[in-house]
């Protein structure tokens, strides 16, 4: 408590002393009133609170080389459906003071901060309100560049889990060093740099065979020469207890590692990129028993699924989630994943047959992921995975997106998506799904400031849900108003009761940095994913209001 008091006194003093200070902030509020209809009812346990709201107010105060800030969060009367139960009431979410001095090459932070080491494979703390991720570290961070090509970051603290004074049961230490080798050697043409990362979790346990400290370390390198670029990273995790459904097993300890490669080439009109990754037992949480939890609590390292992220609703029904974890179950053993994705983007030149008058753009993506091949023995909890061999197929996706401007007033985007989704392994449910999805989006500009958008989608799929159809119509009037109506219909569902129209209609008002959106309708149950991290939302119906503003 003492620390908190000192912190607040310091914060308040900083704020009140400043006469030349600058204030900025942001406000966001998302509320829902859940209303049952003929087909969709709120779960009995949840139905006690039909009005729910998540609200965030962020304020930053800048005075010369100091910045101080707070974020107040409110989950009253209750947080929106399926957010972590740790988000409750009203309290500070984050608070910090930062001192930044460029001539000393120093950047100091006390309080909450966000940070990412390199690709994030060993450490990333960030905020994503849609996913309920707020895993900032509360403690101290120092960033220092002893000389120009070298940048060092060191941090120490506890990880936020819930509101600003709730933490997981460990202390996290992280060190990152990035050396710009090309700059050091004064290389002109080729650029290359190396990075070293170390993260340590100190967590006490009742067991005397479980070490209190567990660590991740990685080394990475990247190079760039003209249009070519390449990156590689190897990471290792020290032995940690196996966690099965929240139970920590000190008697069973496994280490893990990760390989990440990326090569790319691009020039005007053409871009190619290939990413490959192998993960073996590489999930890492700031508290052991949080391993694999559904609320994304305690995440220390960032393991996104390396597949294309879709913006269209039917492209988001079968989403691959990265599989870094270890799980023993006869007939469904998992120790990690191996696979990759390839992107090719090409622009047909204007005034050619395929390019037309305004040019045509084409994007191709191919991704395929497998489990690790190896010898697994679930009853004894033993396994040995092969280094570069593909096991069970988890996911495959091929997509093509063609963007064509017909005239200065009319734009079309056509997308075709073919997916294979192994639900048995990826979602740990049953079966496999093959899905083909066709999508067209057409935007017509009307007059100088208005536009109409029509989106049509269809999905042909096997599995439990079968076929879907979806459409969306949007009118944008001037800069300020948008009106939309959309419907997703699972007409192919073998169960007639589940052939539901997920319709939604609403209005958006925008003025400067203020945005207000209100809508009424139904929300499809499933995964909401951002950057490959997902949150499950149950299906619901009702009225929604979203407000955000910055100043």
């Amino acid at each position, binding site marked *: 408590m003492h620390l908190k008091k000192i912190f607040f006194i310091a914060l308040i003093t900083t704020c009140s002393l400043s006469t030349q200070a600058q204030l900025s902030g942001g406000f966001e509020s998302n509320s829902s009133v859940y209303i049952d209809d003929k087909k969709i009812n709120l779960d009995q346990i949840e139905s006690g609170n039909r009005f729910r709201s998540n609200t965030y107010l962020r304020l930053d105060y800048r005075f010369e080389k100091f910045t101080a800030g707070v974020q107040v969060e409110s989950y009253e009367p209750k947080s929106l459906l399926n957010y972590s139960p740790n988000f409750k009431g009203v309290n500070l979410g984050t608070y910090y003071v930062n001192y930044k001095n460029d001539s000393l090459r120093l950047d100091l932070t006390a309080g909450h901060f966000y940070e990412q080491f390199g690709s994030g494979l060993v450490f990333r703390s960030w905020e994503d309100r849609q996913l309920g991720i707020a895993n900032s570290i509360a403690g101290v961070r120092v960033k220092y560049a002893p000389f120009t090509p070298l940048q060092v970051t060191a941090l120490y603290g506890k990880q936020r889990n819930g509101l600003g004074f709730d933490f997981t049961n460990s202390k996290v230490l992280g060190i990152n060093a990035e050396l710009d080798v090309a700059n050091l050697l004064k290389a002109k043409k080729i650029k290359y740099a190396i990075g070293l990362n170390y993260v340590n979790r100190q967590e006490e346990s009742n067991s005397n065979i479980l070490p209190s400290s567990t660590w991740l370390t990685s080394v990475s390198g990247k190079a760039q020469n003209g249009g070519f670029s390449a*990156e590689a990273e190897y990471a290792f995790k020290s032995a940690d207890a196996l966690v099965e459904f929240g139970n920590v097993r000190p008697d069973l300890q496994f280490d893990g590692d990760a390989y990440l490669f990326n090569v790319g080439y691009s020039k005007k009109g053409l871009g190619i990129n290939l990413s490959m990754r192998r993960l073996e037992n590489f999930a890492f949480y700031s508290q052991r028993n949080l391993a694999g939890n559904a609320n994304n609590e305690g995440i220390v390292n960032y393991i*996104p699924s390396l597949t294309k*992220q879709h913006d269209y609703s039917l492209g988001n029904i079968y989403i691959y989630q990265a599989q870094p974890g270890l799980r023993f179950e006869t007939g469904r053993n998992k120790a990690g994943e191996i696979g990759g994705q390839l992107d090719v983007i090409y622009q047909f030149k204007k005034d050619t047959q395929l390019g037309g008058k305004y040019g045509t753009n084409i994007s191709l993506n191919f991704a395929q992921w497998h489990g690790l091949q190896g010898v697994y023995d679930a009853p004894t909890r033993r396994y040995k995975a092969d280094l570069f061999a593909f096991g069970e197929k988890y996911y495959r996706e091929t997509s093509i997106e063609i963007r064509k401007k017909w005239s200065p007033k009319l734009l079309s985007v056509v997308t075709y998506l073919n997916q294979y989704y192994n639900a048995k392994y990826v979602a740990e449910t049953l079966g496999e799904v093959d899905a083909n999805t066709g999508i067209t989006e057409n935007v017509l500009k009307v007059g100088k400031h208005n536009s109409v958008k029509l989106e049509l989608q269809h999905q042909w799929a096997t599995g439990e849900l079968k076929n879907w159809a979806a459409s969306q119509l949007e009118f944008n009037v001037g800069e300020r108003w948008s009106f939309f109506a959309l419907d997703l219909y699972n007409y192919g569902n073998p169960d007639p009761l589940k052939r539901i129209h997920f319709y939604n209609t609403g209005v958006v008002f925008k003025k400067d940095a203020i945005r207000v959106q209100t809508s009424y309708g139904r929300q499809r149950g499933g995964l909401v994913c951002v950057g490959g991290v997902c949150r499950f939302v149950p299906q619901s119906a009702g009225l929604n209001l979203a407000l955000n503003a910055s100043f």
Partner: protein
Amino acid sequence: MKIYILVLLSIILSSPGVSAQQIPDVKLDDLQGKSFNTGLLNKADAKVTVLAFWATWCIPCINELSTVNDNLDDWKKKYQFDFYAVSEDDSRTINRVKPLVNGKNWDFTVLLDKNQDLKRKLNVMNVPYTMIIKGGKIIYKHSGFVIGDEEALLKVIKDNQ
């Protein structure tokens, strides 16, 4: 705890001399690996600058940047301004940024906001989000993009020459 929050908020909101928002100092890399310090936009003699926040997976963002790119030559002939597209892609999609920018023939500078530091500091909630800066002051903010919004953007550029 709530009492602290109330005290803090009232002090912040009532304190004197609070001036308009300036651009925080964040170092971002461009696609060639050259770093750009956003604090430079606070210089009084800096050109009118557009910052367009976007991501490779965001369709309206691609619509905005493609529209801007189609008009860029024409606009630049008439007016003095800088245009930066700030990518909010995280490590899931960051490797798609360069192929996409080149594949689409975009002619403006793209900056990488890898862990969303600039986005957070400027209180940008969602992409697309566009702001115009003049002499260190934010003179225009707009959330979202629909075809037609580029006209409003152009008008602000034009009115601030």
